[in-house]
C-alpha cells in the first residue's frame, strides 16, 4: 500500500495538525509535540508549513502500533491559542455525531 507520505505532495494552506485513530480502541487522536498521541485537540502539535507537516506526518506514520490512518487536517487557531477543527468532518470527529444517539434519547 502506498504510504500517506507518498500519496501526494503535501501542501497545507494554514495551521494544521496530524490526526488518526488510536489502534486499540479507534478513538480520534492528535499527534503531540512530545511525539505521542492525545485525544485532546488542544494538545496537538501545530504545523504551519509543508515541511513541518511532512515531518510530523512521517513521525506519526512510523508509530503504526499507536494509531492508524494518520493524515493532515486543517485547524484554526484563535488569538487566545484555542485550536478548533477547520472543517465539518473534523468538527464531527472532535465533538461526536450531530444527532442524538438512540440509547441516550
Amino acid at each position, binding site marked *: *500500500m502506498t504510504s500517506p507520505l507518498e500519496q501526494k505532495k503535501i501542501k497545507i494552506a494554514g495551521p494544521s495538525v496530524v490526526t488518526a*485513530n488510536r*489502534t486499540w480502541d*479507534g478513538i480520534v487522536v492528535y499527534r503531540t509535540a512530545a511525539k505521542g498521541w492525545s485525544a485532546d485537540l488542544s494538545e496537538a502539535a501545530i504545523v504551519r508549513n509543508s515541511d513541518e507537516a511532512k515531518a510530523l506526518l512521517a513521525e506519526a506514520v512510523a508509530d503504526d*502500533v499507536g494509531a492508524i*490512518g494518520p493524515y493532515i487536517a486543517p485547524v484554526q487557531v484563535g488569538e487566545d491559542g484555542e485550536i478548533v477543527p477547520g472543517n465539518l468532518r473534523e468538527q464531527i470527529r472532535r465533538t461526536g455525531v450531530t*444527532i442524538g*444517539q438512540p440509547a441516550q434519547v
Partner: protein
Amino acid sequence: MYAYDEIDRTLVNERVSEFRDQVKRRLSGELTEDEFKILRLQNGVYLQLHAYMFRVAIPYGTLATNQLRALAHVARKYDRGYGHFTTRQNIQFNWIKLAELPDALADLAKVGIHAMQTSGNNMRNVTSDQWAGVAPGEIEDPRIWSELIRQHTTLHPEFSFLPRKFKIAITASDHDRAAIKIHDIGLRLIKNEKGETGFEVLVGGGLGRTPFIAKTIKHFVHGRDILSYIEAILRVYNQYGRRDNIYKARIKILVHELGIEKFSREVEDEWQQIRNSSLQIDDEVIEDIRSRFTYPAYEKLPHMPDELRQAAADPDFEAWRKNSVAPHKVQGYSIVTISLKPTGGPPGDATAEQMDALADLADKYSFGEIRVGHEQNLALPHVAKRDLPALWKALDKLGLATPNVNLITDIIACPGLDYCSLANARSIPIAQELTRRFANHELANLIGRLHINISGCINACGHHHVGHIGILGVEKNGEEVYQITIGGRADENAALGTLIGPGVKFDEVADVVEDIVEAYLALRERPEELFMDTVKRLGVEPFKERVYATR
C-alpha cells in the same frame, strides 16, 4: 429458522480463534496496519470517523430470538447500547474497540452469528426477501437457495480476492422486496413450463458512482445448475474485472463495457465446461438444507378473529395495522413490519433494550423468529391475527409502532458524515428533519407510498439512485450540498432517478421535499395515483419547475 450443523459451528468458532490471534498480533505490533487491514475487513471491521465499526451478518435476514438477544448484548457490553440495521441485512456497531472485538465475536459465535465476508473484496452476505417462507404466492422459500449459495461461497478461495466486493440477492415473489436489480447478481426464483424450479439470472446491477440496473443474462437456469452458473459468472469477472482501477472494478462496469451479449457468451463458454462437474447439485443436498429450515406449527385460525374486529374501532391501531400488517400465506396469520423509523430518530437504529424486548415479543407472538429487511426495518413473520392488538400495544410502549411503513417517513439513509469516513455530507439529520416535517400520519397517509433514500456520498449506501425521491449529499467549497433525484425505484420495475436540478444547501433539503410533495398532491389525477405514477405520467419537469421557481 435454519439449524446450523457441526461444520458451520466449527467454522464460526475457528474463525473467532483465528481473529483473536490476529488482533493480538496487531496490538503487539507483530502485524502492521497494512497487513492487518485485509484481515479485519474479512471480519467486518472498518475504521470510521470516531471508532472501529463492526458489521455483523444476518444471512437472508433471519434471526432467532437468542440471536437478537446476543446482538443486544454486544450493543450493551461492547458498544454504546444500540445497533444500526443496514440495507443489506446486516447490523453495524459504531463504537466498538478493536481490543474487545474477539470477545464480541466469541459471544456472537455462541448463537451462530458471525461477521465473515461482511466487508472486503469477496462474496458478501447473500440477501433475500424478509418475507421469505411466509409471503403468499411465493414460488418457494428463497432462503433455501440463499443458504446453498452461502455455504458454497463462504471462505471459497476463488471468491476471496475478487476485483471488488460482490453481492447476491434472491427473491421468489413477483413483488421484489430484495432489490435484486441493484445487485451484482440478482436471482429471481421461478418455475419453468415443466414445473421445475430454477432462476432468472440478472447480472451487473449496482449503484455507487456509476449506477446500473441489472440485466437478464439467462432467463432460466435450473436449480441444480445454479452454483455452476454463478461460478461461471464469477470466473469471467475474476478474469476480466478491472483490478487496476477501484472505480471500474465492479462487475457492472465489466458487463457494461463488454455488453451483455458478449459477457453472456463468455459466461456460457465457462459454464459449459463446469456445469456437469461436482458443482451440479444433487436433490439430496437441497433436501438436506430444506430439512434444516423449520416452520412453525400453525394453528387453524379464523380469517377475522374477534380481537381484530374489536380493535378496528381504535383509529390509532387501524393506522398502524394498515401500514405495518401484511397478508400471510397461512390463514389467520400476518406478517408484521416493525418500523425502525420513529419521528426524529436515526433510520434503522435499535437500542439494546428494544432488541431484547422485541425478542420477548417474538417468542410470545411470532414463534421466536425475527426478520431484517433491506429497508432498515424488522419484521415478525408469523403473528396470529388475534394477537395483533396486544402486539401493537406492546410495540407502542417500546417506540416501535410508528405507523409509517412504506410512507414518506420510512426513509432509508446511510450513516453519512456523522459516522462514515467516506461520507462528504450528513444523511441522518436530513432524515430526522423530514420525519419531523411529515410527522402527521394523516398527511403521510394522504401522500401514500413514497420512498425517500438518502446517501451521504456517491458510494450510495442509502440507495439514493433508486429512491422515489433520492437525496445525495456532496461537498462543495467546504459546504454540504444535496442533489435531488426523483423517479427511482428498487423493486421489480427498478429504475434510476432523474436529477431535477442544481444541488441545494443542508437547510433547504426538507423544504425542497415539501415542494415536491405539494406539487405531486396538486398534480395527481386522483388520490389512488401514487407519487411514482404521477412522475411516470408527467416526467420530472413539473417538479423541477416547482422546486426551482423560487430558488
